[in-house]
């Protein structure tokens, strides 16, 4: 049986002016429902707001007393504002773990490509790649960058791009991605999470170099469990799949990128 749980906020810190990292005590949630990096939790953000907020999982730890989850989210509206202001020691109502994450084969090398608030779930991927992954991380500017030390500690190579050039390469991640794919390292696949325009150009580059690509998608969501059919993604074959149940991670080839 799946459950919703009241989870205590163990700690929180501001990663930059916009993003908050929060550690939650989640009972046996990790042991009961973790299948891999890229899954999400659905968090109730106050009584007046009817819809939960889907937030991707950054890190996790299974522990006999209580599992812990680390989530990272950006304050975008009233709901995430409410969540960001919850004090340590208070509790939040969490549904999880939900969805289908990244499929990672043991012993293989992956190229992680993240943009903005799409970066945190890739840290879980880095952890599943035994330090062998390469990460290409893009942000709007230096003051939006996050988790760089953590990625450096768990990847073989980390490359950063900012739109305005205030940190690392000036420009988008797909330029670094093309350089990397043209280089000597061979990758079993690309694992990408970020805004849709970024995903679209990553998928294009991956196809040019013939490297398999998995993408984590976002869509406005209601139930989070596959019942309401709200969070639809149009498929290349013409049908619909749903971020909450079939995703959030999809094979790049499945998705209709022209929709």
């Amino acid at each position, binding site marked *: 049986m799946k459950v919703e749980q009241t989870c205590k906020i163990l700690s929180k810190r501001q990663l930059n002016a916009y993003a908050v990292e929060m550690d939650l005590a989640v009972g046996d949630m990790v042991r009961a429902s973790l299948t891999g990096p890229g899954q999400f939790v659905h968090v*109730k953000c106050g009584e007046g707001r009817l*819809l939960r907020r889907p937030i991707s999982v950054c890190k996790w730890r299974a522990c006999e007393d209580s599992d812990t989850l680390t989530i990272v989210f950006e304050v975008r509206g009233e709901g995430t504002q409410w969540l960001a202001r919850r004090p340590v020691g208070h509790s939040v109502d969490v549904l999880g773990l939900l969805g289908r994450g990244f499929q990672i084969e043991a012993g293989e090398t992956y190229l992680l490509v993240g943009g903005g608030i799409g970066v945190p779930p890739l840290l879980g991927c880095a952890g599943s790649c035994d330090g062998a992954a390469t990460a290409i991380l893009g942000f709007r500017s230096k003051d939006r960058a996050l988790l760089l030390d953590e990625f450096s500690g768990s990847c073989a190579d980390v490359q950063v791009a900012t739109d305005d050039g205030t940190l690392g390469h000036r420009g988008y991640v797909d330029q670094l991605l093309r350089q990397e794919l043209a280089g000597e390292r061979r990758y079993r696949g690309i694992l990408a999470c970020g805004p849709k325009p970024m995903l679209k150009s990553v998928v294009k580059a991956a196809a040019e170099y013939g490297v398999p690509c998995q993408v984590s998608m976002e869509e406005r969501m209601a139930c989070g469990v596959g019942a309401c059919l709200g969070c639809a993604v149009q498929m290349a074959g013409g049908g619909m799949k749903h971020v909450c149940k079939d995703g959030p991670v999809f094979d790049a080839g499945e998705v209709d990128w022209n929709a």
Partner: protein
Amino acid sequence: MPKQVDLSVELAGVKLKNPVVAASGTFGFGREYGQFYDLSQLGGICCKGLTLHRREGNPPPRIAETPMGILNSVGLQNPGVEDFISQELPELRRHDLAVIANISGDTPEEYGIMCRLLSAAGVDMIEVNISCPNVKAGGLAYGTRPELAAEVTQVAKAHSTVPVMVKLSPNVTDIVQIAKAVEEAGADALSLINTLRGMRIDVNTRRPILKRNTGGLSGPAVLPVAVRMVWEVSCAVKLPILGMGGVSKGEDAAQLMLAGASAVAVGAACFADPYAPLKVRDGLAEIAAVQGLDRVSALTGAVMPW
């Protein structure tokens, strides 16, 4: 300790072990919420709206949050009536609850075909949706004109061997007029209300949040509209009513029953809390117990208007 209240109710001859039903379109075919609790705890389920053929529904975004409400524009995405009968109905039948199939057609003939197939497949009741605001053809058009509502009802009745419940739209000037037309056409029950048409705009992009611009509003914001419409309809027709619209706790359900509903459906509340239908059931039982009622059905129509 208050005495035990009899929670069972009857809706057009169909026995429900308690008056709480999952509302169509919010609960799929039960599989997802069946991972949280035993569906046999519910009185019944109104299944996700079916059409004769598979439909992929509307492009995203399909969901927008509003003050105490939710706008949706899913557009009747469903696997089609035959897939439902072969893939979903057997699974639902493993649980002890009334199975109510919800149907939408582009033509009266389509309603007829679906009623015949679903009656033969052994659903407990058919909910005829003449009020979906999110599809182009059929849908809401049938629910806003009394003569069309009556025609669809007659066809559905003629092809059904199980009770037919007609789901009414609130997007009309006079819901009583539609309810009377449907009653005269032979319906066995009414369900109301479907969603209210609404719109939300992102002021920065100047784009509506929903890809189809407008959608249907549900959630606590619509409860008073639902209570008022159930009350007006129950005063004017003799048919039993499945009341719905913004129910998220026992008190909301009790209001709809006092206004005239025999049973209530819980919809959008499940999104915030998967256990909402069970909490509504328990809250309703508590209200009945505190009021010293033997059975919860005593609430139906017991409002004392000024």
